[in-house]
Structure formats: C-alpha cells, structure tokens
C-alpha cells in the first residue's frame, strides 16, 4: 500500500523493526521499503509524477531540497500529523515546511587519541594548526554531497568571517591547506575511517554517529567532539510525495509517535525529533544538544551550489 525509502544495513533493519512492522500490525497496511540513495528516489518520482513509485521519502536534507525545488512533495500538514506536536519548532521548519526532521547528526572532529593529545578547541584553531603541520588532516572532497558544502565550505567560511554569497575566504584558506601538504581528501564516507586506521590521517571532519560506531566497533583510539562554536547539523527528514498514497500521512504520523522514536534512537544512535523519546544513558552523554549544533542555511546553499562547485573545482580541484 505504501512505499518508503531507506538506506541499507542497520538503518533499514531498524526502520522495519521500529516503524514498518508495528505500523503494519497496527493498521493492517503493507509497507514496501526501497533501498537506495536520494538522487535515485527523486528522479524516480520525477519520471512518474502522476503515479509516483514512492510515497514517503526518508532522505537527507539536500535530497529533500531538490525534491521541493522540483515540486515533487507536499507541505507537511500538521493537521494530518498530530504527533508533530512533540517535535520542536526548528525541526518542523526545515525545507520551507516541506519536510520534518526525523533525526539528526552533526559533523565535528574525529581524531586519533594515540597521536593527538591536545585537539583544537575551535574550527578556526583546527584550520590554523593544520596549516602549521601539527597533523595530517582528512577533509571531505567537494563530491561528498551531504558534507562538504555545509561542514566545510559554509562552516569554515563562517569561522573565517565570510558570507554565503562570498566564499572567497574559505577558498583562499583551502588553497593554502591543499598546498601545505598536510591535508588529504576523502571522497567516500567510509574512506575516512580507512585513512585514519592506516595512519594516512590523524584528524578530520566526520559524523558523530559514524565515529562512535567505529569506536564501539573496535577502533578504540578514535575520539570525537564538536569544536566551538558547534557541530554542523545534517538532519534526516521525512517528506510526503505528491500524488502518493494518502496512507502516507498515517505512516508519517506513526513515525513521530514516542515509542517507535525511542526504538529508532536506540537503534541508530542519533538524537530523534520527538521530545518524548527515551535514550540510554551512554547515548545521552554523547548526543549533541539542539543548541550545540548549528543549522546551515540549506536552501541558500543549494542555490549557491553551482557557483560553489565551479569555484571549488577551479581553485581547489579536489
């Protein structure tokens, strides 16, 4: 009856156990889960706008912005999603109200404790000390869609006093970093871990959830924190596809009910949207508070992307 999107692995498994199965039990409706990536989903819907193959997007924010820009999704109607009452206001205002945050993570610095005893306190300090050559840093390349534009370009630019409309400060700095020889780039989220393990890099920009998972999985010397003024958020959001099954509303509402949200938080180790969700104590300790994370202007960034990408390509080239 319904098709929702998901990423693979634990993500999908948890989606099934925390959301899909209870929902099916409760309503008797069947839910298909389609694995893949945002670009795939958006285009699939765009190719069949009248009879979309997907009803609910669970997607990343850039995919969500794209879907909105192409007019593929509906505004989230609070009337049809009563549980939104438990979701803090900022999390409901993303993508111009065309999406709601389901959970969020934030980018910070992951570093090798064995090599670095005294990690930089702020983003600016990180840049300066990298330039000085205190360590090998691993930064995401321009092609890591969900990370670089926000966690590097916008974040550094901000730390260096630039504006969205003018990224020359960050470009100049990146050039210096690139030429210093103290920076390597990763172009796949998993490559960072490999680089850290093989000793190619000692510190770098990474995501909280993944860093903790690696540490818990056996990479004992990996540590993670949010430098001041804070981590850069990357939310996972929910969208209702235009012309999709009306049952989607029911499902979205179910997503934000407290019990599944707690289950979900425990499974994927990210803070979830519902204020009523329960967390395990050790998770609570690691979790960023909402005010510890910074929200980049996603829509503005998306609009500026063509220019950013071209500039970056030409000047940094990585």
């Amino acid at each position, binding site marked *: 009856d319904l098709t929702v999107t998901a990423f693979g692995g634990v993500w999908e498994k948890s989606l099934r156990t925390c959301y899909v199965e209870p929902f099916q039990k409760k309503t008797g409706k069947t839910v298909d889960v389609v*694995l893949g990536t945002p670009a795939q989903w958006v285009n699939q819907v765009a190719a069949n706008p009248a009879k979309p193959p997907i009803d609910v997007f669970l997607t990343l924010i850039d995919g969500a912005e794209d879907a909105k820009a192409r007019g593929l999704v509906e505004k989230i109607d609070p009337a049809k999603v009563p549980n939104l009452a438990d979701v803090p206001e900022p999390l409901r205002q993303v993508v111009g109200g065309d999406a709601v945050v389901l959970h969020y993570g934030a980018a910070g610095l992951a570093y090798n404790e064995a090599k670095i005893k005294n990690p930089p306190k702020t983003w600016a300090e990180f840049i300066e000390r990298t330039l000085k050559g205190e360590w090998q840093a691993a930064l995401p390349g321009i092609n890591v869609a969900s990370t670089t534009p926000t966690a590097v370009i916008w974040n550094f630019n901000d730390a260096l006093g630039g504006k969205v409309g003018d990224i020359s400060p960050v470009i100049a700095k990146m050039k210096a970093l690139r030429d210093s020889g103290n920076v390597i780039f990763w172009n796949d*989220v998993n490559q960072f871990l490999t680089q850290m393990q093989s000793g190619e890099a000692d510190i770098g920009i990474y995501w909280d959830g993944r860093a903790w998972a690696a540490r818990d999985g056996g990479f004992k010397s990996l540590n993670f924190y949010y430098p001041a003024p804070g981590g850069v958020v990357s939310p996972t959001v929910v969208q209702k596809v235009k012309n999709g099954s009306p049952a989607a509303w029911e499902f979205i509402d179910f997503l934000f009910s407290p019990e599944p949200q707690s289950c979900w938080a425990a499974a994927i180790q990210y803070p979830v949207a519902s204020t009523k969700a329960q967390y395990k104590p050790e998770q609570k300790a690691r979790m960023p508070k909402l005010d510890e994370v910074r929200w980049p202007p996603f829509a503005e960034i998306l609009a500026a992307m063509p220019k950013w990408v071209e500039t970056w390509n030409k000047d940094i080239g990585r």
Partner: protein
Amino acid sequence: MTATASWRRLERRLPTLLLLAFVLIFFAFLLAPIVFVVLVSFGDSEIIAFPVTSYSLRWYHRLLEYRPLLDSLWFSLKLAGASAVLAALFGVPAALALARSRSGLADLVSTFLLAPLSIPMILLGIALLYKLSAIGLGISFTSLLIAHTVVSIPYVVRTVVAVYRGIGRNYEEAAAILGASRRQIFTYVTLPLIGSGIFSGMLFAVLISLDNLSLSLFFGSAQTNTLPVVMLSYLQNQFDPAIAAIGTVQMVIALVALLLIERTVGLKFMSSPS
C-alpha cells in the same frame, strides 16, 4: 640426459620462464588488494580494519541474517545473465555480418553499435528512466534488462567481430557442402569457433552489469534492487566486513560458474590447440 643438456633445455625455455615470472607478478598485482578484502571478510571485528586480529565467520552469518545483500546479489546475477544472453542474441548476428562486410556502411554501423560504451552511464540511466517511464515500463525488471542490454551489446559485438575476422570462411564452406543448413552451420561450426569471442563478450557484459551502479540506480525498487545499489545504500551508514564478505561470495560464485563451464562446455576455446 647430461647436466649440460638439461641446462640447455632450461635455457631454451628461459623466455617462457621469464614470461611466467611476469605473469606471476601480474597476478600478485591483480590480487594484492583483493587478498586483504578476503582476509577482512573473515575478521571478527565490527569495523573494516587491517591487520585482522581474530577470525570468524560472523560476517557470513550476517549475510544470511540481513537478506538484502544476498537477495540483491541473486537478482543482479539473474539480471546480468539475462542481459548478457539478450546482448548475445542481438550482438552475435550483427557481429558476424559486420566482420565479413566490406561495405563502408559497416564502419558506421559498427561505430553506432559500440557507441553505448562511450556515454557516461549516469546520463544513459537517467535518460532511460524518463523514456521507459513515459512508455509505461517504469521501474521494472524489464526496464533494467533493457538498460543493461544496451550497454552489453557493444562488448559482444566487438569481441565477436575480432575473433570472427581471424577465422577463414573455409570451415563454414566445408559444413555447407556437407549439407548443414545455415542454422546448423552456425550451431556446429561458427559458434564453437567464435566461442572465445562470445565467451569474452558475455563475460564482459556480466562483469559490467554486476558492477553497474550508475545505471541500476534509477531502476531500484523494493522488487528490483541490484547489488551495487544495495551496497551503496548500506555503506551510507555502515562500514563493516559484510561488504567484504559479499565480495568474497561473489568470487566463489564466479569460481563455481567457471568450473561448471569448464566441465560442460570446456574453456579450451580460450587457449590454442596443442
């Protein structure tokens, strides 16, 4: 035999031995990164890391537990096989005609049939997604099959043309005079003689199809998920040895498949007689 004789025999074989040494180094190069992948797949650790400290089969159990990887592998194999067969059905007759044709048109047609090789898959994928959706095929196995066949045809055409051109007409003539119909000539004479070409072409098609993320991406659905799409999606959040394990499983499948071919058809068509 005297010592010098055996030494001279050896000396005579020296070029071959040097070649053998080169081939061994080559395979060392080819397998080097893969060895670590296989090792890691037997690791006990939660994350992909080397060196592996303790070994276990947990990631293989994990494959059985978390079905999408194996299911999509099976689906991918079916798709790869079907598209390779379809590509052969389209490609082999075309290649046979092209190889023997002397007309200038043949060059143009060849170029056209090989052209799908030269377009970035991602563009072809998106173009096909919209086109096939417009004609109602949408996101389905058929669509995937069409897409994969489009990119498989060039491989079959090219390899078969190359092999067929090296084979004289006289065998087919001999068969014709012995009363073999066109079809029989093809089945009993041409086909075995161009076996190496068809085999390589289809092998390429299968390999490309199995790895074709950019094309498959657009046709992924709950029913039509291919392995590379599932892996990409999996890696979005997780980096564990299950991915190494599925690769190892693929290699085992390849080994078994090749052994089966060896037993049934024989792989001798890839080496010269005697």
